[in-house]
């Protein structure tokens, strides 16, 4: 039997195969060579400069034809399989190149508009996203509606062929740069909470919008508060019909979690490698406790990568994205936080000095179990939708 010489006998054509297919290899080589020539270098330390640097990276990727692997070609994408998209993320990580900015557009707004948007919306918004001509943010959370998104109170009142919006959003990432916002509002207070929601594309240059950056515990501002004072939105900017906002929002969230799981999950190995190099360089792995914990983190990281690839394969075989993104997002945030804690403990006192990269990761990792749906909410989703347990409230 040996190493498999006899194993291949009589197999059907479609077998488990964890190597890249010819197409995937060809793409990998093409993209790897392209990155080598177009690598954006190392990131600026200022958060705003870093954002624009990553936005420029999106433009560069778009010129190379890599900005939207997973979009159909009719919208300027590459029409690639989810697996090719994973190869894209793997190669970005391998090269130490950043995930491009405007991911709310390319991974969330784009697919949502493709699924629910009108022909005019598709024509108007999709292509400019890839050129980074328009930047997007996600206006879902409110002070009174976080985990309980259906409790959104920001109200959009119909006025002829316009809606007039009043209310407040919070934790809106990248709103300081955004031209458009994916806005979930209430349009009907008389029906069950999640039936009275409507999803809009909001032009951020409309009069009546106030943006206020919020300072995060890292000291930086990624997210913002948004205030709406009689902001007018044309009815043509409704996505997926009045009263259907909940379902449209779920589409966005599903794509968000899959993207975090695949994109960031695959990337976690880079951080692990940095930690490993430090441990080896300082002989810290000779401590058996440190060694054991590191090996455990290595296994968690590999399990996350492999689970991302397995879920992509399964979704591809099934032809749809499901709730499984929640599992990846859970694994990612847990592994990321543990790794950051481990790094702080083992690197030693210097790690917590202001401005240290270790400290930044450590602090930033605190957001991972909250953003994109908290771990508790994701466990609810696993329990309800995947295990089919009776619903908790």
């Amino acid at each position, binding site marked *: *039997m*040996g*190493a*498999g010489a*006899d*194993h*291949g*006998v*009589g*197999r*059907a054509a*479609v*077998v*488990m*195969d*964890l*190597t*890249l*297919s010819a197409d*995937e290899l060809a793409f990998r080589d093409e993209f790897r060579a392209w990155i080598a020539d177009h690598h954006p270098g190392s990131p600026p330390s200022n958060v705003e400069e870093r954002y624009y640097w990553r936005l420029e990276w999106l433009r560069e990727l778009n010129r190379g034809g890599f900005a939207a692997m997973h979009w159909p070609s009719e919208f300027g994408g590459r029409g690639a399989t989810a*697996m090719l998209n994973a190869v894209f993320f793997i190669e970005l990580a391998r090269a130490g190149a950043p995930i491009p900015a405007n991911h709310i557009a390319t991974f969330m707004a784009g697919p949502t508009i493709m699924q629910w948007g009108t022909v005019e919306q598709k024509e108007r918004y999709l292509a400019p996203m890839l050129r980074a001509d328009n930047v997007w943010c996600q206006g879902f959370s409110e002070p009174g509606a976080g985990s309980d998104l259906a409790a959104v109170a920001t109200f959009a009142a119909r006025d002829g062929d316009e809606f007039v919006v009043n209310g407040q959003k919070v934790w809106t990432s990248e709103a300081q740069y955004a031209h458009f916002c994916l806005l979930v509002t209430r349009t009907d207070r008389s029906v069950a909470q999640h039936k009275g929601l409507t999803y809009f594309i909001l032009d951020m240059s409309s009069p009546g919008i106030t943006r206020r950056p919020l300072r995060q515990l890292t000291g930086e501002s990624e997210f913002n508060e948004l205030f709406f004072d009689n902001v007018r939105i044309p009815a043509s900017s409704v996505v997926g019909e009045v009263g259907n906002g909940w379902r449209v929002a779920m589409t966005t969230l599903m794509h968000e979690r899959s993207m975090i799981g695949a994109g960031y999950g695959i990337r976690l190995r880079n951080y692990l490698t940095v930690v*490993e190099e430090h441990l*080896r360089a300082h002989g810290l*792995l000779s401590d058996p406790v440190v*060694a*054991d914990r*590191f*090996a*455990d983190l*290595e*296994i*968690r990281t*590999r*399990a*996350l990568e*492999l*689970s991302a*690839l*397995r879920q*992509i*394969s*399964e979704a591809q*075989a099934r032809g749809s994205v499901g709730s499984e993104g929640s*599992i990846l997002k*859970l*694994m990612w945030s847990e592994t990321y936080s543990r790794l950051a804690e481990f790094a702080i403990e083992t690197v030693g006192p210097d790690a917590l000095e202001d401005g240290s990269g270790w400290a930044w990761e450590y602090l930033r990792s605190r957001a991972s179990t909250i953003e994109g749906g908290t771990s*508790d909410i994701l*466990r*609810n989703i*696993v*329990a309800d939708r*995947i*295990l*089919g*347990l*009776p*619903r*908790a*409230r």
Partner: protein
Amino acid sequence: MRFTLSEEQAAIRDMAREVLAAESTFERVRIAGEARQYDSELWALQRSMGWPGVAVSERWGGQGLGLVELSVISEECGYACASTPLLGTILAATSLAGAASNEQCERYLPSLAAGEFSGAVALMADTTPVPDAGEAGLIVVLEGSGGHVSLQPAQPVETIDPTLRYGRVVDPSAGEPLNQSSIAYDSALVVVSAHQLGLAQRALDLSVAYTSVREQFGVPVATFQAVSHRLAQAHVELTAARSLVYQAAWAVEVGDSESSAAAARAKSWLAEASRTVTGSAIHAHGGIGFTWEANLHWLFKRASMLGPYLGSARQQRGRLLEMLGTARTSSHETDHS
């Protein structure tokens, strides 16, 4: 890349699940466990279906399938907590296929593949009770630089898991020497991990079913997050487990450069997850869970016995780290050359 079971592999899984659901009920497991005797009827059935030889080359009378298919069967036997010497026998057959000479294969594999005698695999210098060694006809002892195959009887050991006949090898260096082979050990790790995955998956499925109907405070207990989140977390851990086990099965089968690391990861993860998840299942059932009749203990006990077998989680992590270190050094060397 395609990381899913093929249609054929899924069909093998469904068939095994169906057969075992009918022929390895907990009632049958309990009878076997209480008598401390294998379920001979089930063993005869498994033999008639060719399971001991699933991954043995057709040349030696097997079905010539690979480690992924073998893992599927092993997982399903864990899922059913089957009380037969199949685990030890497929471990022995796989190890021999990896480490024995042609002549040794010819001598032993046909009988193992037919289940004429059962087998077991032990590690040199390891006193962990070996599943299925208690009554095994053939014992393979693996060690770093090779190992031995012998027909010596092992010393039976009564353990907390009476559904398998455990034993300790009396004279590990007795018998004929085997070739050096990491494939033998890696394959064995994968097959055991797959079995542990099955044990844990069963425990989770039972917990989902029970907590969905058991009511307290006027509602199903699964509506309490302390309950549902524990099960959700178990599902996340088993998702990781499944990815690790089947990647390792594939990697060892094709001789991928990562195969030994993959097998070590799978065994490390399953040694812990299998015990945790089967243990949580007992908790999720409340008092009933602690009874003999609830049957959860069979899963928990076997998971506990297989945890340290062939190297504990901690030992696997140690091995993994060494392999990563070596991989790192050799990739640096090639970079510089």
